[in-house]
């Protein structure tokens, strides 16, 4: 079954995670593992590309909240890019745009890291 997939692309110091499908309580552990791997490798400048993510529940949002403090302490960040309107609405409903940088294009998020 492939209700959810995470792919990863490392570009210089930035790592991009591509989420695809449904991010719910069943699939959140896969996303968690992908973030944990990045942290373990000390790759903490992270962009999460959600262009192909069709659904997110609080279990998925919880993964972001579970890592953000540790990653920022380590000098990194989780930036979000290419959210569909449906997924953005969930982030927005909870006020997440206050806490996370959200970009229309993946490239913009990557550039942001390069700027400093």
């Amino acid at each position, binding site marked *: 079954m492939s209700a959810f997939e995470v792919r990863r692309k490392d570009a210089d110091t930035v790592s991009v995670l591509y989420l695809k499908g449904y991010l*719910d*309580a069943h699939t959140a552990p896969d996303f968690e593992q992908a973030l944990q791997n990045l942290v373990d490798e000390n790759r903490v400048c992270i962009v999460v590309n959600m262009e192909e993510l069709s659904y997110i*529940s*609080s279990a998925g*949002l919880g993964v972001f*909240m579970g890592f*953000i403090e540790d990653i920022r302490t380590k000098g990194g960040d989780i930036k979000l890019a290419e959210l569909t309107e449906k997924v953005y609405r*969930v982030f927005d409903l909870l006020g997440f745009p206050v*806490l996370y940088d959200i970009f229309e294009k993946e490239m913009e998020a990557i550039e942001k890291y390069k700027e400093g």
Partner: protein
Amino acid sequence: MVTRNAEYKLHIPSQTDNLELIRNFVSGVAKKVGFGNEDINKIELALDEACTNVIEHAYRDLDKGDIDIAIKVDYQKFVILVTDKGKSFPFKELEIPDMKQYLAELRVGGLGVYLMKSLMDEVEYHSEPGVKNEVRMVKYFLNKD
């Protein structure tokens, strides 16, 4: 033509890998009775949250359990009842997070009930301890048809 005044029920094992089936069920019924995409998405997410809580909390210490979902539709409203036979909890005492503070303190978890309340017009919880627990969520039809 939209048919209302009907009841739809789904009985399903309490497992996270059934959440997709549960979402497809409720969004199919919500579409059929005439909700637009935005409301369909809200209803789908609210039910996912309610069922995730049943799976992860009500049946936490149990090997097996079932979830019963009933959708009752009439001309005014869309009512979802989620019933489990697991552990009950003091719903009324649940502290609903203040999101500003929540985000400032980088808290984790505890957003499910908050979401349900934000997405639906009414959310209630009734428990007959040892018999069954029931979450009741309502969405009204407004300016529709």
